[in-house]
């Protein structure tokens, strides 16, 4: 009977599958649906920030889809989880371009995922608007379908270095997480610090998530005035916590990957007083963002995470561009290329300021902020102290 048991299993599988069939058929799209996809890490250590991107997009779709729906198209959000891994992002990207209804992608969180995924989008000329990817390579490739609403790491690293200089730091020790983003911004910080006369006592990369002792020992012996961690909060928090507990007396500085209430949730007292640079200003800063913050809290039960506001703006731009593209296509479903073109042309007064794109997709005037952590209570993350605020134009493409 063992022989037949295989067939039993096959039969059960197919029966189970058959149950899904009607739903799958029903799920076959009705004519006239436009989908906006979001790709960000929804699971794993960086999920807090990734969720923020998805929810910001979701809020915008719900609030602003009216203008597109009036033209006869239903608008839906399709969230994807790229798990902060490049190959998952690429696999999802292939799935996304196969779905003809998806005309825009809002994502990603990690530059290391965004760059290869955008190569896939490029093949289909599918537009990608990034609320959070700060690595220069995102736009330096001059792809017509990639734009971003946030700032760049070559500027952010310089801002960090200048700030360190202003704190009269003489030696700095730089650690990074070996990702495109973390290593990228750490390198910019290191190079600019050297130019400003700060001695860089060490530059180490690590993928370690729990046990930083062996790395901290040499740092402690070198006694730097500042420790810079190029990476994301889920790694930085335990690192800084252990550094603090080992009694290393140095100031802490990090890039926008630090910008999450989970940083204090994990590290507690260790990071109070620490500084970080970011290209996503705290929501409290933007006058128009108050309504957004209130709506977000009402709908999702928590304060908006960093990059939620940028996602909201990105989606708003996407919807505006969709509207223009539909009209340009005479009321029919527009081509992806047309949507990409329209996005570049869009000027938008968003909740994070006025947004306009330059010829390679960078935001013409991006904001850079230096903030200081004031409390070890994660709920008070929004109250972090603004030390400095700059608006800097993106560097031009190097020929």
């Amino acid at each position, binding site marked *: 009977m063992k022989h037949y048991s295989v067939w039993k299993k096959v039969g059960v599988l197919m029966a189970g599958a058959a149950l899904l069939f009607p739903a799958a058929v029903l799920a076959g799209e009705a004519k006239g649906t436009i989908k906006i996809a979001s790709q960000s890490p929804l699971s794993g250590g960086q999920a807090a920030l990734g969720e923020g991107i998805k929810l910001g997009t979701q809020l915008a779709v719900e609030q602003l889809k009216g203008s597109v729906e009036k033209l006869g198209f239903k608008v839906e959000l399709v969230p994807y989880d790229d798990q902060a891994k490049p190959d998952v992002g690429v696999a999802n990207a292939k799935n996304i371009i196969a779905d003809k209804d998806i005309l825009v992608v809002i994502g990603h969180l990690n530059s290391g995922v965004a760059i290869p995924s955008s190569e896939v989008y490029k093949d289909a000329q599918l537009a990608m608007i990034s609320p959070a990817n700060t690595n220069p390579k995102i736009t330096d490739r001059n792809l017509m379908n990639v734009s971003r609403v946030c700032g760049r790491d070559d500027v952010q690293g310089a801002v960090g270095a200048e700030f360190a200089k202003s704190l009269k730091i003489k030696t700095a020790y730089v650690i990074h997480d070996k990702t495109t983003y973390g290593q990228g911004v750490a390198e910019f910080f290191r190079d600019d610090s050297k130019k400003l006369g700060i001695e860089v006592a*060490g530059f180490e990369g690590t993928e370690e998530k729990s046990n930083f002792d*062996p790395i901290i020992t040499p740092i402690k012996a070198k006694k730097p005035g500042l420790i810079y961690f190029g990476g994301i909060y*889920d790694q930085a928090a335990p690192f800084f916590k252990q550094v603090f507990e080992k009694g290393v007396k140095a100031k802490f500085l990090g890039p926008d990957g630090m910008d999450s209430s989970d940083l204090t949730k994990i590290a507690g007292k260790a990071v109070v007083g620490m500084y970080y640079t970011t290209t996503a200003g705290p929501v409290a800063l933007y006058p128009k963002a108050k309504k957004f913050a209130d709506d977000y809290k009402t709908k999702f039960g928590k304060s908006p995470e960093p990059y939620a506001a940028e996602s909201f703006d990105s989606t708003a731009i996407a919807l505006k561009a969709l509207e223009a593209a539909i009209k340009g296509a005479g009321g029919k479903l527009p081509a992806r290329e047309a949507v990409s073109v329209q996005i570049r042309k869009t000027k938008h007064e968003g909740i994070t300021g006025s947004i306009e794109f330059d010829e390679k997709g960078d935001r013409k005037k991006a904001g850079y902020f230096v903030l200081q952590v004031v409390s070890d209570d994660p709920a008070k993350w929004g109250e972090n102290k603004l030390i400095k605020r700059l608006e800097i134009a993106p560097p031009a493409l190097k020929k």
Partner: protein
Amino acid sequence: MDYPLLIAIFPQVLLDGLILGFMYALIALGYTMVYGVLEFINFAHSEIFVLGAFVGVEILLGLKAAGVLDSLSPFLVLVLLLLAGMAASGLLAVLVERVAYRPLRGAPRLVPLISAIGVSFFLQDAIRLFESIWNNAFNLVYPTMDQLNYRFQLTENIDVPVKSLVVIAAALLMLWALHLLVNRTKVGKAIRAVAEDQPTASLMGINVNRIISLTFLIGGAMGGAAGVLFGIQYGLINPYTGFIPGLKAFTAAVLGGIGNIPGAMMGGLVLGLLEAFAASYLSLLTGGAFGAEYKDIFAFSILILILIFRPKGLLGEVVRERT
């Protein structure tokens, strides 16, 4: 070459290595004991280890939420955590053995191995699922207990936090207790008998199934204790934290001679020390060309080298005679 620096950090690195080594030793015990009686690599042991850590953190978080954490003596809390972790992990190990390994007792070697890998994957995500629903978190943080973080500043470069001492003391205690158990008690004798020759042991009246379950219980409990200590020492865990330390601990067990309990302890210590030294010194010695990133494969490279010259491990393996 900054020699004063290299020498100055030496004691601290030594200490870090010892702590790491003791943890690996505790985890390695689980692998080696199971291998001794069943000749089988329990791949799921890394998850059993991490479960201990999770049980520990949940209890701590519960105590903290109830507001009583600060008022209790840290040593009391520690004992509670260890007992809970050991119990949870031990029981999980027994359960896994019953469900996933016992039905495969007679099968060729590869079959239970695959099953073990399957269990490992299953548990990783099961813990993740549970935590994402219960705590909506992926990374869990051990609440700090200030007394444990107090540091003795011996010299400028050496400081010994209380929790490191606690970890070492707890590990030593457990290793010694295990030694007593295996070598001085009747139960220990039974375990050794089953490890040496299963059919004859059963002929001697030993309930082999019960002894095997007991072995899993003890090995799992050791792993669970290691988990709690890991959480206390490093502060942050997530469902996938178990994999790499588990792998290294198994390497340590093989290093010392698989099936050999003192071997596992030694292997763990050696590996921990090597790793700590590699992590701290590699970058300094090579001028930044090779850094701490290589510490993980350092362990494997050493293993491969040792196995080439001493295929039975450092202290020789203790597995049953092949009939």
